[in-house]
């Protein structure tokens, strides 16, 4: 046993030596990477660690942080009903808009793939524009206005489906579905671009080979040839979709108000803002941030291992 341990350490030592030597040879690599690495550590790595640390404390900026153990998490889960609502809303939004937006991104990228070049580039602009149009989603609050001047109310009343105007953005029953609709409208984002570009790169001769081997229609082509070729882009798109799906807050805040009626449109991020920047309970807010962080990372890992199986 001791022999084994000794050998193990000798090996590690040797490896470290080799690495050090290599590192010395490649000094300039570190110089090149240093500016980015320092900023990245400062604004991405360290904050995550700090957030986890503060989540175990009571901290209100004025006094130094006081260690309270798991108290923040316990009160989050056991006492904070609004947090549970926000978790429920976030998951509802994520589970519906995440996969749907992801599939829509792929579907449209695939459908426009065979169009002539100039039609395709117009189509890409049309589909991608909503996701970069700043806060254009605010316009939906005009479309869904609660009185008879709102377009949706006017249209539905014209058709005789409803006879009094509905308060779309104030009635808790309609808030979430409308937010989901708007989020879906904006969901053809970075992942969509990645899919469009990836589909263009699929080797054409594979389709001809597939045709010879008896691929009958475009659906078979999609499943047997296109999808396996697109795996890296599918993984990238999934990361984008999941990250977006769980960080919903702008749309709900702009459309349903902040706070919304009965907290019916509250998401985890809105809850985080509330405690972090309105009530200055930083420790509690960091606990929310940590939970959100864990949810996102776990979800990403799970989906990635699932997607790796495509076409194998």
């Amino acid at each position, binding site marked *: 046993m001791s022999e084994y341990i000794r050998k193990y350490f000798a090996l590690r030592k040797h490896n470290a030596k080799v690495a*050090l030597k290599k590192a010395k040879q490649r000094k300039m690599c570190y110089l090149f990477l240093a500016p980015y690495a320092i900023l990245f550590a400062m604004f991405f790595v360290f904050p995550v660690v700090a957030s986890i640390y503060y989540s175990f404390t009571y901290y209100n900026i004025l006094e130094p942080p006081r260690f309270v153990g798991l108290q923040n998490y316990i009160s989050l889960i056991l006492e904070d009903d609004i947090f549970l609502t926000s978790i429920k809303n976030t998951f509802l939004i994520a589970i519906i808009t995440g996969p749907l937006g992801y599939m829509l991104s792929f579907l449209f990228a695939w459908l426009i793939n065979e169009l002539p070049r100039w039609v395709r580039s117009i189509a890409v602009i049309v589909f991608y524009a909503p996701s970069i149009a700043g806060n254009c989603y605010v316009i939906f609050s005009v479309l869904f206005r609660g009185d008879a001047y709102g377009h949706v109310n006017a249209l539905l009343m014209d058709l005789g489906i409803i006879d009094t105007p509905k308060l779309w953005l104030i009635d808790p029953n309609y808030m979430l579905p409308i937010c989901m609709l708007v989020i879906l409208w904006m969901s053809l984002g970075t992942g969509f671009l990645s899919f469009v570009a990836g589909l263009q790169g699929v080797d054409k001769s594979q389709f001809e080979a597939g045709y010879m081997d008896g691929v009958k229609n475009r659906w078979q082509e999609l499943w047997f040839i296109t999808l396996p070729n697109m795996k890296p*882009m599918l993984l990238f798109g999934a990361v984008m979709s999941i990250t977006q799906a769980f960080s919903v807050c702008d749309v709900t805040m702009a459309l349903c108000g902040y706070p919304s009626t009965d907290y019916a449109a509250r998401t985890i991020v809105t809850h985080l803002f509330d405690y972090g920047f309105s009530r200055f309970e930083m420790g509690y807010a960091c606990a929310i941030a940590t939970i959100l962080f864990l949810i996102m990372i776990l979800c990403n890992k799970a989906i990635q291992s699932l997607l790796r199986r495509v076409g194998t």
Partner: protein
Amino acid sequence: MSKKSKNAKEQVYKKKLITRRKPNRSVAGDIALYIFLVLVALVMVFPIIYAVGSALKPLDELFRFPPTILPQHPTFDNFSDLFVTMGKSWVTFSRYLFNTVFITFVGTLGHLLIASMGAFVLAKYDFPGGKTFFKIVTVAMMFTGYVTQIPNYLILNKLGWIDTYWAIIVPAFASPMGLFLMKQFMEGLPTSLIEAAKIDGANEWQVFRRIVMPNVKPAWMTLIIFSVQGLWNNRASMYIYSEEKKTLVFALQQIQSGGIARTGQGAAVLVVVMIVPIIIFILAESQILETMASSGLKD
């Protein structure tokens, strides 16, 4: 003569290409596909068209019943009203515009330089820690900026950068998305190019500046659009509180929340805010798509 015959030959070739249909495609399927795509495209652009339409509507048309979608007598009144309203505020419109342009420009430039330098060594050299670092960057793409917002505020506060432009600009330098896309694109660059430059006596910085950067111009555009999009729309309300340093988007949204009398101006605001990222995207589309082709996450 040879040119003429060549032209004739090409024409025959072209004709053949057009008439030959791809296998596995039916005409009916194609037509259905086109109709479907046009319908979806209409749904997608409708809110944007509606926003532009509202911005061009004169006041009496904004509140007409039943509501209209396109303006009958388009005017630029809302835009000129917007400038009047902005002119009345004690911080001038040009100051807000300068703030946003400054933040966007410096942030994007710095991000492009710093991320490219990092991406260059990560893509082209094998050194201890490089792969691990890139893995960490990929993980950083998996959670949103909101998670780190509170510690970020505390860090910026320690540095004394709260209420300065740097509070927005410097964190934007380190955006993981830019490094990721740049690194993936640079991997496609032939290593022999760099080796040839080395043999000719260039040092690493010269290789980076003279050989690598001119060859990855499509990736520049991609980094620029993502960075501009983030910074242009940045309201910065958490980090900047003195009025003369606020961004354009923040000021415009104040106008938007001014109630029903500002409906027309609010729509004009939407148009002003969305026009910049969309125009940059339209101009750079083909280059962005070229970069995105290498965006895949490999194991």
